[in-house]
């Protein structure tokens, strides 16, 4: 998505620069274009600084209204009856007991479904006056199922005589439950190259599904009473993904009939686009009841029908020479995405090997289909790659950081590996796996360090239309239909406008999350910041240009010589004759000013790099792993909000920590049921598991363009932690999560030799 620019003429402009609170004007050279440019990274008054979230106060007081909190008159609560079986047919369904209940206003049945293919597949749904009565109604529905054979583990699914997940036409390109995908490279060449290596490692890696576990479950509130229009409140990553789908499901003529509202949303991580299953059901219920319906998935629903990060089953063989060169890699990768395809990046991921062979396939099971989840496919490729890299480094007796540097040429990684190593104290790392002295009783506590690298796109594109309004009383509004997932898009929208006008962030009112505002892309692929901020910049620039043209005569200056800074407007050569912001706005007259902006090339870039380092302590008596410290060095071009960027880095590390040590989908091969569908049983990292965390924004990145970084910050954690465990106790755990049983098993094997 990176659009190349022609080389541009340069021009010199004066910009205010704040050093220790003192403002001076400095001359800088920028591209001579008629459009907006960011200007020097260190010359900003707002962006590239720590910025307080503009919606912080609303969130800490409970005033922020999420979809879950929306209440509209006459609203009903929806509930979904889930299939209790991984594979079944509906023999009969009797919804009449539910229909007869007081307080139940609509019941729909999905009895016409030919086959239920996963536990959680909707069977029926109700809408009632309270959630409790809706729950009663769901329980009152009588369903007779014919259970069919299922597969819910990859080991079951791969067997030649395994029950088939898909049948009939769906089965066309399948070999059993395996859907073969691409093959790259020459296997024979790789095998031949491996023979020339000084060290060869072959391992099998297994990663279970991870759940998004958004704290606000998936769902929508459909405010529809049977008329020509509807308003839909949605917990979504895409405001504009809602109206079309909702209109279609409600039977309204087109998307203009539906207004989508996404004021606040409680986490998505890749799983919330479109009206989705709960939205579809809610629209159907609302249409039937001719009344508004609030349908938020229950927590159990959320685990069973809101998607997951596909698991992975990979066989990897790699070889290196003594001088630290990764020579050849062969990988067979099965994506475990349940009913969906899953996603899987290649191996050796960011590293270069001369010969690479890769074979990818999807192995289907009777489980809810996977969805995109924070850097889809990358953590699944990073963990095995980084594990193998460490094994090879150990085999040839080379420092793992050194070995990595020899096999990746991009200087960004070299810079980041050095910075991360320094921050974690890499020089204190014990040099042989399991070779540290140990501490505590029986010297059972062993410490170790590990690292891993990541890459991501994060580029922007033309999708946002931003409006800036300035009112004669000094008000500034920035308006765009984008959504804020918690990444802080509301704040950066305000920040870019504030930066342009030399105002504090709080002076800008940001209106987002409404489909009647200017369009915006859905937040996927870390594309929001790089798509949104150039459009905001353009709108603010256009507004400033108009504003300057109006004010120039008053200040006896040319429009381009006006400086907007510190709540004042003045000519560059006459800072003493400044207008206050309010005085300047009063000059706009009754109509005020409005300007629209769109994404422009040259303000955003593409491609980010990041590294993680982890230090762990392994209790070799209990197998418990405690992460002591995590470091992430992440670049993002021009950082917009340093505070929120660091928070995103922390969040990425923490989700990666969960992926590495705690989070696991337990599917019972016998019943076909997922056994841990609650937050008690599906372990998310909590306060007690928090290590010291060091988020580092890589300021060595000289690119002066905005690039998204939220997703990559989670990728290397599992690899870094697995390597730290290996370094601590000598056990190479090749499956996630790294649970105590695996450590103890590994230690026992080491003792046996």
């Amino acid at each position, binding site marked *: 998505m990176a659009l190349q620019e022609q080389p541009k003429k340069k021009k010199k402009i004066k910009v205010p620069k704040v050093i220790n609170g003192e403002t001076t004007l400095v001359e800088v050279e920028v591209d001579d274009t008629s459009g907006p440019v960011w200007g020097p990274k260190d010359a900003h008054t707002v962006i590239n600084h720590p910025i307080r979230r503009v919606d912080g106060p609303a969130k800490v007081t409970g005033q922020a209204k999420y979809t879950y909190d929306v209440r509209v008159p006459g609203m009903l609560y929806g509930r979904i009856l889930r299939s209790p079986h991984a594979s079944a047919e509906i023999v009969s369904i009797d919804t009449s007991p539910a229909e007869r209940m007081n307080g139940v206003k609509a019941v729909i049945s999905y009895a016409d479904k030919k086959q239920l293919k996963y536990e959680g597949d909707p069977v029926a749904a109700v809408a009632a006056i*309270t959630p409790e009565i809706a729950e009663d109604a769901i329980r009152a529905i009588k369903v007779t199922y014919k259970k069919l054979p299922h597969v819910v583990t990859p080991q079951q699914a791969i067997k030649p005589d395994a029950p088939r997940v898909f049948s009939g036409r769906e089965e066309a390109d399948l070999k059993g439950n395996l859907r073969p995908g691409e093959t790259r490279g020459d296997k024979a060449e790789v095998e031949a190259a491996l023979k020339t290596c000084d060290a060869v490692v072959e391992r099998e890696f297994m990663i279970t599904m991870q759940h998004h576990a958004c704290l606000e479950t998936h769902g929508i509130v459909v405010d529809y009473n049977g008329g020509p229009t509807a308003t839909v409140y949605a917990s979504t990553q895409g405001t504009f993904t809602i109206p079309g789908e909702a209109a279609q499901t409600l039977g309204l003529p087109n998307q203009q009939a539906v207004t989508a509202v996404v004021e606040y949303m409680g986490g998505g991580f890749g799983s919330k686009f479109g009206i989705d299953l709960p939205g579809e059901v809610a629209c159907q219920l609302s249409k039937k009841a001719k009344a508004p319906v609030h349908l938020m998935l229950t927590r159990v629903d959320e685990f069973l029908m809101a998607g997951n990060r596909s698991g992975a089953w990979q066989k990897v063989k790699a070889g290196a020479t003594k001088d630290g060169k990764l020579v050849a890699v062969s990988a067979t990768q099965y994506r475990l995405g349940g009913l969906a395809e899953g996603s899987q990046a290649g191996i050796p991921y960011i590293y270069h090997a001369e010969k690479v062979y890769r074979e990818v396939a999807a192995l289907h099971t009777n489980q809810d289909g996977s969805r995109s989840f924070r850097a889809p496919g990358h953590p699944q490729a990073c963990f095995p790659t980084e594990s193998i890299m460490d094994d090879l480094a150990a085999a040839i007796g080379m420092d793992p950081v050194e070995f990595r540097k020899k096999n990746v040429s991009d200087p960004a990684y070299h810079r980041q590996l050095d910075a991360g190593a320094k921050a974690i104290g890499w020089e204190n790392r014990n040099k042989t796996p399991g070779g540290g002295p140990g501490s505590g009783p029986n010297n059972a506590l062993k410490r170790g360090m590990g690292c891993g690298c990541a890459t991501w796109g994060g580029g922007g594109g033309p999708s946002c239309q931003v409006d800036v309004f300035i009112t004669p009383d000094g008000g500034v509004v920035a308006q765009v239909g984008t959504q804020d997932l918690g990444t802080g898009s509301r704040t950066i929208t305000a920040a870019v406008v504030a930066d342009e006008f030399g105002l504090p962030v709080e002076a800008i009112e940001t209106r987002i999350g409404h489909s009647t505002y200017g369009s915006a892309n859905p937040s996927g692929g870390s594309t929001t910041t790089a798509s949104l901020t150039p459009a905001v910049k353009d709108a603010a620039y256009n507004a400033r240009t108009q504003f300057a043209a109006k004010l120039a005569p008053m200040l006896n200056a040319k429009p381009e010589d006006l400086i907007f800074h510190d709540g004042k407007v003045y000519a560059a050569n006459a800072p003493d004759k400044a207008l206050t912001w309010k005085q300047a706005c009063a000059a706009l007259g009754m109509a005020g000013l409005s300007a629209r902006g769109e994404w422009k090339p040259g303000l955003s870039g593409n491609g980010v790099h990041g590294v993680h380092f982890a230090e762990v302590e392994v209790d070799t008596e209990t197998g418990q792993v405690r992460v002591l410290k995590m470091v992430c060095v992440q670049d993002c071009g021009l950082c917009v909000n340093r505070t929120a960027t660091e928070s995103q880095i922390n969040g990425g590390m923490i989700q990666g920590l969960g992926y590495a040590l705690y989070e696991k989908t337990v599917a019972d091969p016998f019943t076909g049921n997922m056994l841990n569908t609650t*937050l008690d049983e599906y372990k998310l990292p909590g306060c007690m598991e928090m290590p010291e965390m060091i988020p580092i924004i890589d300021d060595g990145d000289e690119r002066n363009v905005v690039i998204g970084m939220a997703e990559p910050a989670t990728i290397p954690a599992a690899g870094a932690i697995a390597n730290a465990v290996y370094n601590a106790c000598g056990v190479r755990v090749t499956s996630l999560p790294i649970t105590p049983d695996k450590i103890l098993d590994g230690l026992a094997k080491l003792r046996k030799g």
Partner: protein
Amino acid sequence: MPHDKDELSRDGGGLSRRQFLKGVGLVGAGSALAADLLAPETAEAEPKPLQEAPAGETLKKGFLPITLNVNGQAVNMQVEPRTTLLNALRNHADPPITGPKLICDQGACGGCTVLVDGKTAYGCMLLAVDMVGKQITTVEGLAQNGQLNPVQEAFVEKDALMCGFCTPGFVMSVHALLQSNPNPTLDDVKHACAGNVCRCGTYPRVFEAALAAAQKMQGRA
């Protein structure tokens, strides 16, 4: 945990209306008693005495009017015996009190943390009818006259929130901690928030905010 009948009548043999209602609410659809109260046919608002009730007590079914004291205000609402405090606040109070969040509905995440007579409690683990006569404080009750309290201020200042859905719960846990322990260590903060879950990963900044708020409050005192 479902209570059985023996447990319900354990202390003192008698079964007050309040205890009975509590038991029924917690039993769920499994037992004969609960099945009667929860059965669809009985969901209308008409009082009917049950044989099990001690003389002089009347068991209510369907919706009954209660008044809760929430953030210093009397809040009237109609709830069922089984309605949790959390659902009562969110779905039955008018205007709805939606600061406490429904996330797990089983006491596993802390998103619905409120204060009951000054102590933290999970709103999803309490029955609304049991809360009559108690002082309930939700996150909406912390700011005074539009001024954020020091904990809320620190959360904003330290960026101890991202999507913000867990934030009300964390704010309440930290607020309660600082009421009882004005000078906490990092470990104290971790323990105080151990019942709160965040998915965006705000923990390190929640810790910072809690410690910063404590310092600020001490400075003021």
